[in-house]
């Protein structure tokens, strides 16, 4: 991990409330990997105070830039959405654990919901480079919330909307149930999104006998393992730190 000042290369609106932010990645910092994250000090003021965590959505080694896909949720992400090309960002990263690669010969089933798209899209890109078969599902409430819907659809991603305004009508979890029979132990499930979706993926993987890796969200204070603030419940009782042991966990390690 390294703290550095990055320069914004672009901040592009993707869909209602969603943005893709591209920024320079310090040459001396370790390389971004899918599932790992970084923190940003969004303002020099004391409101909002804490750094905000975000997952990488892409890394371009030639350009030396990293990207994230984020949703405007509150004060911090609101300030980020108003940043422009040329503005600087105080970054600490990369942090946490990445998605592990599937064992040899296995296929990957990727499931993203809402702001989970960034790390899952990055993982898809990385797996495809390694020639690992990938199928991807993206779910959100309604068509207007789909970030870059056309490029998603073009990559073969199954799009699910709760209201049926585009693609499969229902949640990503509903879609998984519809393909349940075709998935077996030769598949590894990777998921990032809202907690209920992660739970559905965990249960689905359990039924189908496949491994499942989820990326969890928790409020963070330090992001580096020092404060115990980001605890999530572990399957064996007790807690694990989302920022250090996670944010990616084998779903069997967590309490659901």
């Amino acid at each position, binding site marked *: 991990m390294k703290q550095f000042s990055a320069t914004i290369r672009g901040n592009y609106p993707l869909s209602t409330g969603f943005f893709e932010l591209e920024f320079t990645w310090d040459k001396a910092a370790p390389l971004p990997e899918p599932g790992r994250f970084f923190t940003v000090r969004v303002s020099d003021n*004391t409101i909002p105070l804490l750094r905000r965590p975000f997952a990488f959505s892409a890394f371009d080694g030639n350009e030396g830039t990293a990207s994230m896909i984020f949703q405007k949720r509150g004060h911090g992400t609101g300030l980020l959405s108003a940043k422009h090309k040329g503005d600087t960002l105080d970054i*600490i990263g990369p942090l946490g654990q990445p998605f592990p690669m599937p064992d040899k010969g296995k296929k990957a089933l990727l499931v993203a919901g809402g702001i989970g798209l960034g790390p899952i899209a990055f993982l898809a890109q990385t797996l495809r480079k390694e020639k690992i078969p990938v199928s991807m599902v993206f779910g959100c409430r309604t068509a207007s919330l789909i970030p870059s819907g056309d490029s998603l659809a073009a990559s073969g991603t199954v799009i699910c909307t709760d209201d049926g305004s585009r693609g499969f009508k229902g949640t990503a979890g509903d879609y998984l149930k519809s393909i349940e029979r075709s998935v077996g132990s030769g598949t590894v499930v990777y998921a990032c999104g809202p907690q209920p979706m992660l739970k559905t993926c965990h249960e689905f993987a359990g039924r189908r006998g496949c491994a499942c890796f989820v990326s969890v969200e928790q409020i963070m*204070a330090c992001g580096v*393992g020092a*404060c115990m603030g980001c605890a999530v*419940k572990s399957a064996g009782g*007790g807690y694990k730190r989302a920022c250090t042991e996670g944010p990616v966990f084998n779903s069997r390690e967590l309490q659901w």
Partner: protein
Amino acid sequence: MSMDLRIKIGNKILPNPVGVASGTFGYGGEYEKLIDLAKLGAIYTKAVTLEPREGNEIPRIVETPSGILNSIGLANVGVTRFLSEKLPALAKLPCAVVANVAGATEAEYMAVVERLESAAQLWGYEINVSCPNVKHGGMAFGTDPQQIERLTKKIRALTKRPLIVKCTPNVTDITVIAKAAEAGGADAVSCINTLVGMVIDTAAKRPVLPAGTGGLSGPAVRPVGVAMTYRVSRAVSIPVIGIGGIMTADDAIQYLLAGASAVQVGTGTFVDPSIPVKVLEGIVEYCKIEKIASIKELHSRFSQP
């Protein structure tokens, strides 16, 4: 003229007045890649208890205007693993390593200090009698001057190392607590720990933190910390360590002018890990411009209201 940054506490010397506060810096190693730990005056560890503690229900943190409310609940590895896994790396650093000690009973505090006495590398102790996040925990001690004096005396009998008692601001008169610690034989007092606060989720109609209340820290508490440091400094004759909301050198200088001999940066490190070192550099710069040669001289320059 260069400034003498050293601070004497009990029978030992702190290399400089800027430390990092307990619970905000883990056991040191977590921040090792981000800052030069050798520049810190002291590292105050996460609270160490006799047995490992898992900590409180989640979520444990919620942001407030210019602050955070935490309910970590003394989650820590316990004294055995602290000694075997955490201390060896810490002990290689030139800064002072101060163990923050917590317990549910007098006997637990004493058992922890007895175990820690075996570790030659430890600089001293900060006795946490003031965590607002543990039921039947330190807070009961923390608000009763008689118990504080007795506990301090008992720990004093176990160690010659610098003994710092950390005071809670959640009392009517913090000077009574500080005086009790001094009477018990403490070498210094540190203040303040977090202030009890609550944030309510109006949609769910319940507190955001499952524990109900949490401890408030960050810039929001700084004026409270400065005022309490000011009052405590006048009530006791041992050194006072100022804590609460320090983000800049100017914030730290306020504490020093108010009477503190040293300071700790807590929440500020979360926001920007370079803050503790920048605070130290800023203090040195200020003293150079003001032609101040020591912390003692800084105290003497303060115009009493």
